């Protein structure tokens, strides 16, 4: 039987300096934070990060691991402005390609289909094209419409966190929204999945939830079980965003304001130590779901 099981360290070992890395989830929602923390513990650098950004982007920027960021926003929702991302931007430390949320998923789709770009009206009339070097194309049909060519966002690797997965890479996502994780997986050469629960054969455990299989296993390269692996971001229906942890993380951007002084607190020497420092599995599972 196919067996795609890997350790988090194995997964990060598959990544290399200068790679373009997509990170699933949305702001402070269902981010593969344990895998991001594993990257933070590694020597990886010069990454191009492609994400609907939250604390994943903020801490990778703060640690100096980001060469370039492709983004439409970076936010922690209830803390609207991600403070570590702001610091990096205001210090001019990262290159950026800023695009609209919809253009972003359009770029992932172009990459998924192996196309150089997909045309869109989005971006016309704004500063995005000029700032991002986006070019236009003209419709070859009678309408002759001028459109922006959203370039493919080809990813060397993508990381996503899901509720369940089996050894072969059959995933299930149970939350109310799968965002664009499916397209991150399809836009990437290799996709690595962390999950709350790993089973041997999905069909023997949760066949009734097969509709929650948002992306087929042929797009999944490696799987690893990391309970609470989205913390401090949310993982519905299991746990919500840990606002106490986010407040502490955001507050540290002001005081002491130096990532190296607080990295241990927000990353930990290993995942077990990290989880312990935030109260253990039980505490994380008790974080209430967000009210919007």
């Amino acid at each position: 039987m196919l067996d795609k099981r890997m350790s988090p360290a194995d997964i990060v070992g598959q990544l290399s300096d200068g790679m373009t890395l997509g990170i699933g989830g949305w702001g402070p929602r269902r981010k593969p934070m344990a895998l991001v923390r594993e990257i933070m513990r590694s020597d990886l650098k010069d990454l191009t990060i492609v994400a609907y950004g939250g604390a994943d982007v903020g801490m990778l920027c703060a640690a100096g691991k980001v060469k370039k960021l492709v983004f439409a926003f970076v936010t922690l929702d209830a803390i609207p402005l991600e403070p570590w991302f702001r610091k990096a931007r205001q210090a001019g430390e990262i290159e950026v390609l800023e695009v609209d949320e919809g253009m972003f998923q359009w770029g992932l789709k172009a990459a998924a289909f192996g196309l150089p770009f997909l045309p869109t009206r989005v971006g016309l009339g704004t500063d995005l094209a000029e700032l991002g070097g986006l070019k236009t194309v003209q419709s070859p049909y009678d309408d002759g419409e001028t459109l922006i060519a959203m370039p493919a966002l080809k990813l060397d690797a993508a990381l996503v966190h899901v509720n369940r997965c089996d050894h072969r890479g059959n995933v299930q996502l149970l939350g109310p929204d799968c965002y664009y994780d499916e397209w991150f997986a399809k836009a990437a050469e290799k996709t690595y999945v962390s999950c709350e629960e790993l089973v041997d054969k999905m069909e023997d455990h949760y066949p009734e939830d097969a509709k929650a299989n948002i992306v087929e296993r042929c797009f999944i390269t490696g799987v690893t079980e990391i309970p609470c692996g989205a913390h401090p971001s949310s993982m519905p229906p299991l746990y919500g965003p840990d606002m106490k942890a986010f407040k502490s993380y955001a507050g540290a951007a002001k005081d002491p304001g130096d990532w190296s002084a607080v990295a241990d607190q927000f990353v930990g020497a290993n995942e077990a130590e990290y989880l312990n420092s935030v109260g253990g599995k039980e505490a994380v599972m008790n974080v209430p779901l967000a009210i919007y």
Partner: protein
Amino acid sequence: MSDVTLAELCIFACSETFRTDREIIATGIGPVPRLGAGVAKLTHSPGLMMTDGEAYLVEEPVPMGPRGDYKPKFAGHLPFSRFFDAAVWTGRRHAMVTPTQIDRYGQTNLSQLGGTHARPKTQMLGVRGFPGNSIYHANSMFVPFHSTRTFVEGEVDMVSSAGYNPAKRVAGGNYSGIDLQKMITNLCVMDFGGPDNAVRVTNLHPGVTFDEVQEATGFELIDAVEGETALPNAEALEIIAQLDPHNYRSHVIRDNPSALRK
């Protein structure tokens, strides 16, 4: 009606802005626009559709904040993963937002202030979905503190949403979807109904003068005042209270003033 607040008057004006006979998604970001959308849906515009703020469609707008025993009643599903195909890129939406800057062309900025794109002086959210919203569907704005800092002279620092600026248009581009409707502030209601979509003041809130609005605006306004902004009726006030049991609306406008100036 003397205990009606200015925030409630603004909510009522927002609800009028959402008035439609179409079946479209109403998105109000922030308490005042969100309550405005709720009032519109529950009174004159039942075709409006809205979410629970996350991913499910509800026919009964969800009250804001901690809900006690109230459970949102899901009637449908509209997650982010379907939002562009279903709502935005088909033009089936009217969004009301609060940008950081707005200029005479209706261009807005949510991304960055000052500096350069490589090194902004102040980084904000990023453009989010503003570029797509502005080119595809109806948009309105709510501004709780009308000032020249928001309604800027010249152009916004970073054009995050498309407006009516001819200099920003490329030949052959289709700009027919740009539909900027109203701007509701703590002083007045404005639209883009002047020559070449110039901004007009159409209603002044009770006790406000046109000169006061002009003074607080970085660009020239057209005086097209039809009268005072209407006070909310009893039905609207009841719905507002129901949808905002924690009175978040009282924190939106500084000092939560009465709708009628003393």
